[in-house]
Every structure is written in structure tokens, then in C-alpha cells.
């Protein structure tokens, strides 16, 4: 026993180092399991309030651009409204169509208080949390397109896995042909993501739009991701590797909307049931 204590005393520096290093690497490795830990994140009250102050400065300088974006979105929505009025002449038709539409989403607006594009794991912090009805695993979009997925939620704030995070995979499709594949960031340019698993017989053209597939419970169908900038077919592979230019400029993100699927819970439960069978 005395030898043991002498051993501890002699090597206490190294042993303590091992303890802390193990603890830190445990946090790194178990990142995905520790979903609920909001303490070591920007949705924690203290870090978020600091970031909110600095974010409000940055947003002040981005006001003009935010204004432009909002007015453009307004115009777009107005024209859509007109289209809808034209295609649905009577009120009754609208409501019956409405009932049949399975994908109903509820949108909540939020302000970006922190954002990065230069890490491997980029996150966005928004100033809305559980108290405002934000739930984890809901989609985040902006006027220009797809932004990310809500990860951690605290009472007043939420952290969002940015599309520019190598940990995020999103199901996306080619708008014109409906071929769908998997979208992820390769960690290099903040203007581009990579779409894979599009079969070789799909018609792919530079400039085609890539949108969300709507198969998940996270995003509505048809949210713009970007346009095809470049594509190649790997030798001996049956799938394209497509470079997509993002429609959202992640460097100048100011306002976003959180989309929650109203029947999402039901869909997830049903899918889980059939998986268990």
C-alpha cells in the first residue's frame, strides 16, 4: 500500500494528465450520444448571452442585406400567393386540398447570434429555444434555402448544426428528375457541398437545381440547396459525385426560420415501428 501511494506521488503529474485527457477525449468521442448536454455548447445561457451582444453588433452592419433579402422573399411569396389564387378558384377546393397535403410545416422565425464557416464542425446559434417551441431535430432554412438542423435546445437559445458541418447528412434530390441522393459537406469551401449516390443513369447537367427530398421529417419538400457546379462519375462506380454551389451565403446569415413538421412525430413513430418489425 505504501508503495502504491509512493507510485501515485511520483507519477501524479502523468496520471492526472491521463485522467483529464481521457475525460476530454471521452467528450469528443461520445459527442453524438450526449445529445442533451447543452452545458458545453453555445445554447448555454452564459455563452449565448455574450454571443448575443456581439451578434447584435454584427447584425447591425448586415441590416441592409437582411432588408434586401426580406423584401425579395416578400415579392416571391406574393407571387406564389397569386399563383395559388389562380389555380384554386373556389375556397372549398383549397381547404380540401389542404387536408390531403401531408406535409404541413410550422415556421418560427429566429435571429442568428453566432455562426462560423471556417471549422470542420460549424454551428449556428439562434436566439429562440424551447420556450419559443423550438425542438431538436427540426429543419432550419433561410429565405435563400437550406441552412441546417437544430441540435441542442435550451430554454432561450438553440444550436443548429450548419450544413457546413461534416457531421450533417441531408437527403436531397435533383429538382427536375427527382433522383435523390445524400448531401454532405467535404470540409473545404464554405460555398460548396457534395451530393453523392445519384445513379449514373440520372440526367445531370451543370446549373440544375438541387432541393431537399422531403423524405425525412426534418425538412419540407423542395427547399433549395443550390445549383450543380460540377460533376464527375467515378471510374467503375455507378454513382455521380456532384459539386453543388450553395444558394445560401453562410457568411452573411442573419435571419432564419425553423420548420417543424406538424405530423413529424407520428411519421417517426410509424417508421420506427416498421424498422423494429
Amino acid at each position, binding site marked *: 500500500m505504501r508503495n502504491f501511494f509512493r507510485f501515485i506521488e511520483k507519477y501524479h503529474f502523468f496520471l492526472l*494528465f491521463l485522467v483529464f*485527457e481521457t475525460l476530454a477525449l471521452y467528450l*469528443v468521442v461520445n459527442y453524438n450520444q450526449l445529445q442533451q448536454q447543452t452545458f458545453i455548447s453555445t445554447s448555454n445561457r452564459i455563452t449565448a448571452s*455574450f454571443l448575443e451582444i456581439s451578434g447584435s453588433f454584427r447584425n447591425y452592419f448586415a441590416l441592409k442585406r437582411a432588408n434586401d433579402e426580406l423584401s425579395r422573399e416578400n415579392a416571391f411569396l406574393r407571387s406564389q400567393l397569386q399563383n395559388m389564387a389562380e389555380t384554386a378558384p373556389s375556397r372549398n377546393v383549397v381547404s380540401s386540398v389542404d387536408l390531403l397535403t401531408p406535409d404541413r410545416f410550422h415556421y418560427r422565425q429566429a435571429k442568428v447570434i453566432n455562426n462560423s464557416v*471556417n*471549422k470542420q464542425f460549424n454551428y449556428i446559434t439562434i436566439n429562440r429555444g424551447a420556450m419559443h417551441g423550438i425542438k431538436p431535430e427540426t429543419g432550419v432554412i433561410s429565405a435563400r434555402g437550406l441552412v441546417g438542423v437544430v441540435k441542442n435546445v435550451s430554454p432561450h437559445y438553440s444550436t443548429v448544426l450548419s450544413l457546413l458541418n461534416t457531421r450533417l447528412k441531408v437527403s436531397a434530390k435533383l429538382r427536375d428528375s427527382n433522383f435523390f441522393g445524400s448531401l454532405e459537406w467535404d470540409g473545404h*469551401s464554405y460555398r460548396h457541398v457534395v451530393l453523392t449516390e445519384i445513379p449514373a443513369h440520372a440526367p445531370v447537367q451543370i446549373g440544375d437545381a438541387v432541393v431537399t427530398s422531403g423524405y425525412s421529417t426534418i425538412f419540407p419538400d423542395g427547399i433549395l440547396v443550390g445549383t450543380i457546379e460540377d460533376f464527375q462519375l467515378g471510374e467503375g462506380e455507378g454513382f455521380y459525385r456532384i459539386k453543388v454551389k450553395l444558394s445560401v451565403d453562410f457568411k452573411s446569415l442573419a435571419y432564419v426560420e425553423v420548420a417543424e413538421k406538424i405530423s413529424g412525430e407520428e411519421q417517426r413513430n410509424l417508421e420506427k415501428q416498421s424498422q423494429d418489425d
Partner: protein
Amino acid sequence: MINTWIRYSLNFVVLVLVQALILNQLNLGGYINPYLYILFIMVLPVAIPGWLLLILGFFTGLTIDAFLNTPGMHASATVFLSFMRPLFLRYIAPRDGYEPGSLPIPAHFGFIWFLNYAVLCVVTHHLFYFLVEAFTFNNIFSTLWRVIMSSIFTLVFVMIAQLFGQTRTKRN
């Protein structure tokens, strides 16, 4: 003694806020991110007990992790830096050893000595951090490129920070 605690607490708060609110928001060339906050670990007194050094390293890293949503990543790198720091100090010790109460800063040991020390510390921390971040040895060249570029920028900021710190920490 109390004076030291206050000064280092202030150091900590200023460096963490500068890191979180200014440097983390910089976008230099897409993937360069200077991590100036490790200066806090670097300038702790030479004679600081090892256990305290490791504890401070761990919590400094964890605080930065909270701002970057990277639980454990910065903590693991700063703990490693804290572990290596005594070795570096021994390696570049002046011929007649360290006087009690000395701090590893240019005002005490000169600019060249500090530059050596800073390069060792910054590269060690960045190498460990970016390897943990990538969590793979694939793309090792892209990872090393990140290490080199970010180290250069961190060193520049470390040196700039010395301009502000020097008058406060004159040898007494």
C-alpha cells in the same frame, strides 16, 4: 499572491472573450482560425504546480469548447499542452536555471527565447487539436496545412498580445 490570482483571472476572461467574440468570428482564407486563448496557459508562472496547470488547462479548453460547440476537443489539446509545457521549459531553460517567481514572457527571458517557447507551445497545441478535430490520419496533408497556417496566425497574435502585456508584467 492574491494579486497574482486577480491578474490571471483577468487574463483568462480577456483572452476567452477575445477568442470567442473576435477571433472565432474571423474568416481568414476559409479555414484558418487563430487560437490565441492558449496564451493563458503559456504565461502561467514557471513554478506553477503540475496539477494546477493541468486543471487550468482542462477548464480553459472546456470554456472555449462551450463557445465553439466542440465538447472535449479544445480541452484535450490544452491538457496536452499543459502536460508538455514543463518539458518545453526544461528543454529551453537558461543556463543557470529559472529564478523563483519568473514568468515565461519576453520581459523576463528575452524575445528570442519567448519566440522559441511560443512556437513549441502553439505548434504542439495546434497539431493535437487539428488531429483530434479531423479524428483521422486520412487527408493528413490537408490537416497539416491547417496546423501550419493557423499556427502562423496564432503566433502573430501571441506576439501582438505581448505589446499589450509587457508593461504590466515588468520584472520586479
